[in-house]
C-alpha cells in the first residue's frame, strides 16, 4: 500500500547531435540550467547510469529529465 514518490515517467524528448535535449513533449527547450550524471549500483547486476538535465522550457516551466544510459530512453522526474 506504499509507493515511491518522484518515480521517473517516460518522456518524449527531442535531442540534438550532442545528446542535449532540444524539446520536451514537443515544447522547445529555452535553456539548460544544470547538467549532472549519476552512477550507482555499478557493483550489482543492475547498475544505474543516468545523465540528468534541468531544463527551462519555452513556456517558462522548469523540468528535470534524464537519459538512462544503461537501458536507453528518456524520463522526466520531479526532483
Amino acid at each position, binding site marked *: *500500500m*506504499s*509507493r*515511491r*514518490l*518522484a*518515480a*521517473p515517467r517516460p518522456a518524449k524528448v527531442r535531442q540534438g547531435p550532442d545528446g542535449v535535449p532540444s524539446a520536451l513533449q514537443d515544447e522547445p527547450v529555452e535553456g539548460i540550467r544544470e547538467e549532472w550524471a*549519476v552512477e*550507482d549500483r555499478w557493483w550489482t547486476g543492475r547498475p*544505474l547510469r543516468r545523465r540528468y538535465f534541468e531544463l527551462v522550457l519555452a513556456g517558462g516551466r522548469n523540468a*528535470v529529465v534524464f537519459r538512462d544510459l544503461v537501458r536507453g530512453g528518456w524520463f522526466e*522526474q*520531479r*526532483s
Partner: protein
Amino acid sequence: MVICVLYPRFELVAALGDRGTLLAAPAALAPEAGREQLAGEVSAAAEAFGVVRGMRLGEALSRCPELRLVPPDPQGVRELWGTILDRLEAIGAAVESDRAGVAFLDADGLQGLYGGDVQGVLAAARRALGRGVRLGAAPSRFAAHAAALRARPRRTGAIVVDEREVRRFLAPLPVALLRSRPELQSLPEILDQLGVRTLGELAGLPSRAVAERFGHPGLLALDLAGGRDTPLDPRRPPEPVMEKLELPEAASGQQLERALELLVARLLARRERRGRSLRAVAMSARFVAGGTWRATVTLRRPSADAGGINLVLKSRVTQLPAPADSLALEVEAFGPPGHVQEALVEERGEVRRARLGEAVRQARQAAGAEAAMRVLEMDPESRIPERRAVLSPFLGDDG
C-alpha cells in the same frame, strides 16, 4: 415470579387525554409526521370493524369510514408512562419496560416486604397504580404477559400462574401471542399455515425439528410456549435533566434554531450534568394544532460543546412537520467527562492528532484504504530522487 403490568391501548389512551369517551367510538392513532401511513393503536370499537394496528390508513378508512384519527402524542406518552414506572419503582421494584403500556418486575425480591407471597406484591402494585391496570404473575415474562391479558381491570384479582401450572395455562392459548416478542413477529402466521394453532401444539413439537425449520426464533418460541424465558433486564432509573421553552408564537425555521441554541446553553449549564458530556439527547415539540413530536439524537462523539451540539440538532429541528408552540430538550444519556474541554486542553498537539485520526478514519470509510497517506522520508540525501521518499499509509489513532 414475574409480574406483568399491562395497560391495553396505552398510547391511544394517553393521546386522547381527557377525551377518553372517544375510546367507545371507532378511533385509531394517526401515524407520526413523516412516518409510514399506518394506523397506530386502535379502540375496541374500531377492532370490531376489522381495523388493526399496523394496517394501512387507506384500508382502515375504507373498512370503517367513521374512524376517528387521533394525533399521536409521543411526548405525553413518555411522560405518563415514566410516571407509572416511577410509581412501580417506588414500591422497590426493578422494572423492565421496552414499550409504553407493558412493564415487568421480579416479585421474588419484594415478597419479604409485602407479606411473604406474590399476592402481597400484586396488592402493593395495584395500590401504587390505581384502577385500570391489568396484572398477571407467572414464572416467566411471556406467561406473565399472557396472564395479564386474561385479567380484567374491573376485578381486583390478578391472574397468578404457578410453576406447575404454567404449561397447562399456556397450552390452549393461540400462537399469535408470540407476536409480543419483536423477533417473533412473522412466526405465528407461518405456524398457523402449518396447522400449529396453539402454544400447546407448538410445545409438543420436537425441538430438533423446530430448530431445523425455524432456526433460533423457533427455539425461542418453543421455550416461551414451554413456560421458559430469558431473565428480566430492568431499566436504570433515568436522571431527568430537561429544559423546555414556551414559544410566544407559532415558531418555525430560524426562530426554532434560536430557541434550540438557548435550550442547549441551558442544558449544558445544569448542575446535574456535573461536568459530563452528552451522549444522546431527545428533542420534543408540541404543535400549535395539537399533538407532539419527539426525536432522539445520539451524538457521534459525546460532547458538551454547544456549537457542535447545535449543529447536529439544527438539522433535526428543521424537520419539524408543523409550527410548534413549545420546544424541549432532554438528556437521554450522559457520556464521560472531559470530552467537552477540547478547546481548553493545554496539549494542543494531542488534540490535533486525535482529530486528525478521526478525520483519517472517516476519509478511509468513504474512499478506501488509500484515502489518507503520508510522505515517509527514506533517504532524503539520495542523489536519486525516487529513493528519497515514499507514500505510506497514514497512521492515525486507528493504527
